[in-house]
């Protein structure tokens, strides 16, 4: 029931307030959906790239070298890439997603890698003794070992992803919720702006409440003996 209310809240809100503000309901869903899809696709790409890379770099001396490198890249302002990406891909989903991957991959990579690097040595020894090698080791040992790192990295990454996509859409990588807010701002339409901001807030709240907070809680249980 609580879950249902949480899911329904942003939808109900959007239906009611689009009536009052005179904005087309479909438009809000379409713009919010566009931004969400961009973040989602970029997240999937980031994770798919980060996990094998982290597993590869997780071993031995290369990991010692790359961990601080990713920490720096994590704080690199990816907006610096946006003008170049617009020339390469034009304004649209491709540029947006590429830009988002460049933003989101680093926290995921850094976090997964550090959870592997800082893992308990005795667990590694136990895995070795009981014969964990190759693919089996990867799926039954390394992957579960890195899950808490993946979850924290995902929360940071997706947070940065939303920050970045709304910013990019306001600058002009339209459509999307950023574009929606920007055009309302250009018209000086404060009620619609307020409505849009709250819609986004509710939407993000729902995602966190339903997905990330439970996962984070699980991963704490899961990482500690």
């Amino acid at each position, binding site marked *: 029931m609580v879950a249902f209310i949480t899911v329904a809240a942003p939808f109900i809100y959007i239906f009611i307030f689009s009536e009052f503000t005179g904005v087309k309901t479909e438009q809000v869903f379409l713009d919010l959906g566009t931004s969400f899809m961009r973040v989602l696709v970029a997240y999937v790409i980031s994770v798919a790239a980060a996990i094998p890379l982290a597993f590869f770099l997780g071993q031995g001396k290369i990991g010692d070298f790359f961990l601080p490198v990713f920490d720096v890249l994590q704080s690199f302002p990816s907006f610096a890439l946006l003008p170049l990406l617009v020339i390469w891909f034009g304004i649209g989903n491709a540029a947006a997603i590429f830009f988002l991957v460049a933003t989101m991959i680093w926290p995921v990579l850094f976090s997964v890698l550090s959870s592997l690097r800082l893992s308990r040595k005795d*667990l590694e020894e136990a895995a070795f*003794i009981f014969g*964990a090698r190759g693919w089996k080791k990867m799926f*039954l040992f390394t992957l579960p070992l890195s899950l808490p790192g993946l979850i924290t990295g995902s929360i940071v990454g997706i947070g940065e992803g939303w920050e970045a996509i709304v910013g990019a859409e306001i600058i002009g990588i339209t459509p999307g919720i950023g574009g929606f807010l920007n055009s309302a701002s250009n018209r000086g339409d404060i009620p619609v702006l307020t409505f849009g901001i709250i819609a986004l807030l509710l939407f993000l709240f729902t995602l966190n409440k339903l997905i990330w907070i439970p996962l984070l809680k699980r991963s704490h249980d899961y990482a500690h*003996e």
Partner: protein
Amino acid sequence: MNENFAIKVNGLDHFFSSDDSRKMEVLRNVSFTVKPGEFSAILGPSGCGKSTLLRILAGMIKPAGGRIDFADNNKGFKNNELAMIFQSFAIFPWLNVYENVEFGLKMKNTPAVERAKKVEEHVKEIGLVGFEKTYPKDLSGGMKQRVGIARALAVEPRLLFMDEPFSSLDAFTANELRQDVLKIWLQDKITILMVTHLVDEAVEMADTVLVMTPRPGQVEAVVPIDLPRPRNRRSKEFFSLVDKIMDIVKI
């Protein structure tokens, strides 16, 4: 040809290289033999390299020099013959009790039906029935080590290494688990090599005690313990053996 040994270690040397590239000698010319089915204890003060020695024998660390032979298999004991019990338990926090015990069998590709049978058998043997679905975070130290023991026994090893297996437990639990391990050893005839810093523990459990010197670790003496089992920790013979070993350690 067929010499009677499970492990034969000859002239083992090892160094640690610290950050300033100075070499620290950890083990010097360590030689000993473990007989099949024997319970041996490696006894020594902290930092004498006894855990390192165990890890070298387990194939986790490559020694700087020396020779290790294993019975019938000069490549060493690999995943289907060797198991280990850890001081820190080292059970996997993301797996429940059942899945932890199952881990080694899964790695060995044991068929599912046989796997379930073996897990159930060892869960029962070590007293974990009713806890199969419990995760490590909800277990006491003693129960965690029971999981560690069941995981090791489930692969039915010919050789069992124990690295200070009872040192993280309270005295009462430690004693209970010692008796359980001894019972299982007497019935299964596994070759056991246990690292410990407790003289009483070594005398109570082992057939042979290898006494090691402080760093660099060398074998100072090999003391056979010929007391009848079950051993009485309060008997005169027990105390005289403990004293004898204490005297060697003090040197």
